[in-house]
């Protein structure tokens, strides 16, 4: 059982890191800080009118 849990954690970690690095390499991951240049389409929809 322990081996299965460890295996799942390991695969999930590798998947997450590879996916993240791939997205970063393609420039898809947006820096989360508010500095201009980061998060280039940070749309704040709070308070929008209900349609």
């Amino acid at each position, binding site marked *: 059982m*322990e*081996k299965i*849990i*460890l295996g799942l*954690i*390991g695969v*999930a*970690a*590798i998947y*997450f*890191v590879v996916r*993240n*690095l791939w997205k*970063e*390499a*393609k*420039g898809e*991951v947006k*820096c*989360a*800080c*508010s*500095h*201009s*240049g*980061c998060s*280039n*389409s*940070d*749309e*704040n*929809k*709070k*308070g*929008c*009118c209900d*349609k």
Partner: protein
Amino acid sequence: MDNKRITIALAGNPNSGKTTIFNNLTGSRQHVGNYPGVTVEKKEGFRCFKDQELLIVDLPGTYSLTAYSPEEVVARNFVVQDNPDVVVDIIDASNLERNLYLATQLLELEIPMVLALNMADVAESWGIKINDELLAQKLGVSVVRTVGSRNQGMEELLEIAVTKKARSGSCNINYGVDIEGALEKLEPLLAVAHQELKFPKRWLALKLLENDKDIIEHVKKISGGEATVRTAAEARAALQKKLGEDPEMLIADLRYRFIGVLCREIVIAKNTDAVTISDKIDKVLTNRALGLPLFLGMMWLVFNLVFTLGAFPQGWLEKGVELLGSWFGQNLAEGDLKSLIVDGVIGGVGGVIVFLPNILLLFFAIALLEGTGYMARAAFIMDRVMHKVGLHGKSFIPLLLGFGCSVPAIMGARTLENPRDRLVTILVTPLMSCSARLPVYTVLISAFFGEHIAGNVLFSIYLLGIVLAIVMARIFRSVFFTGSTEPFVMELPPYRIPTLRSIVTHMWERSVLYVQKAGTIILAISIIVWFLTNYPSEVQYSKDYEGLVAQSKTAFTVQVDEEIAQPLKITNIEEHLAFQAVVTKISKVEEDFKAKSENLQEGSPELDALKSEKEISLRKIQTVESALYGPASRYTELKGKLDDNKDKLDKEQTGEKLAQSYAGRAGKVIEPIIAPVGFDWKMGVGLFAAFAAKEVLVSTLGTIYSVGAADENSIPLKEALALDPAFNPLVAYSLMVFVLIYSPCLPTIAVIKRETNSWKWAIFSSVYSTMLAWVIAFIVYQGGKLMGFGG
């Protein structure tokens, strides 16, 4: 207009307060700063006002609609091409004349417009009174007074924008007989362009006379456009010949004359020549002789505070992580899962999370730097130095922003008009020490350098980054990008006290980001590193460690039996209560002494005092237990030797297991390359993993040292590093230098690619910096060894 979303564009000069107003209107928390060029990309936010959905667009600052730098192009293109329903021109009321230049150009575009006289409070405090009613009348547009920092005037602004009070104004600038004649000649030729491009004919004609490359390209594409452009070129040449000056300059000059006349009518200024507080501060801070030393002094202070003040909360967090590790260590069943949680997750992520206070302090300092207006002064002070390397002071702003994060810093280089300057700045910005590298420095400095020099060591690393950036800029400028230096034109904004909200927001966001990073990418990498350092589980050892431990135990038993048990006629010494009681007393004194004397230097008065205290305690035991003291003392000595030997063998065994793990084997492959700079395979694995994010070096070392720890008790990484013979202060410094210089992290490489539109420069940036890192670390390490700092 009622049933669709209204698009409101916030335009204006740099540093006129657009983003502050944008944040007020939309509830966003976009970054603000008191220097020109904070916003380099347009930002969008939504707001509901009187049942109407508003799309509010914050544009980068621009001085005119004739765009030069990439971020100005973004602003101009949005206003000119995206046809917003209303443009709000945010005007710095304390700097009216210069700000009205853009307003006149927007008016010529004949788009619905509102003028927001922002920072009206500052203007009034300077004795500048503006007759806004007359201004509105003269320009034919609505004027609203706003104070962005206090959220004043926002409702009025929206009221006008939404209720169609925003209207196209007119400024009726008369450009003189010759230019007006040329405009009249060109306007009829621009009928088709007007239909297709939706710009007023007069504005198009003016742009053609101003030789606006972008508009020329657009007109050329329209049928008959080539001929119109040729006619415009002829008209330009004729004007130049007749008036003796470039028509672009003449048009700008005439606009300023119009503004000058307008300002004389609407502004009642008092004491405009009076020396402001900003002027007084600048006399000192931008002084030719004092400016640079004061800047360096401030930096020194910041990094000392980041280290010394940060050490307290860092210690608390360390304690918390240690307790968490011990709790899991004691409450989880033995096995790989427990090791993964304690060594992998807590050892890795916990090692990074403890530096959150230092990161926060650094961002507090950066927020002050940006908010007060000192950022522009730093650029001004460094202009002389930057000119020597072929750049100008403006390039120093992205470099300073690089102390926070290289990604926005590289994007900040958009404010540079010259593509050559921009590229050089982009290539050297990663040499500035970003906040992600701070945990690496902090852990190494606290492990190997005394408290009294810790701040100086940290400062030296940051300074090295600046010096290297300047040197590399010089090299790039003379090798790849030759050409003359552009003059430096940048406004120095008045000093302001940053709002508490902006500072707290900035710090809060950075802490969320840091914790997020620790809980995602760093966690995942720590798990992978744990697997790589823990497997394969079956290892062929060079020695029979279990046999050796058993052998030393037998030797101990025999020696105890011969030297102690037989002479005392004790059959089972382990269970002889009286004897073991004396042994416990002696051991306690020895352990107390060991614990207290751990950090004391040989020959120090404190150590001497502890030694005499120990002697007194032992003598007391000897007096009470005179018969058993001698044998018990010998027993304690032998037991100590046995334990030391067991520890040594355990460490050797775990070290061997670690070296034969997948990570160890991979590290051994790169070890020959990094050995000349003083690094072993563990540091190599850490440096490789840190390519994803620099903090990962700390989490990787945290995991490796936790897995490699022979005992169950988790100790802070800095203590584990200090105990590792592969490390010494020189190796630690060499490692810090390497981390400072080597390849930027992947997100930075991606942003370099995006900004330069070329993988070539992105890859070049990674390769050159890694090679440079090796060379400089080699000089530091080998030079240090030659000078006897090898340790």
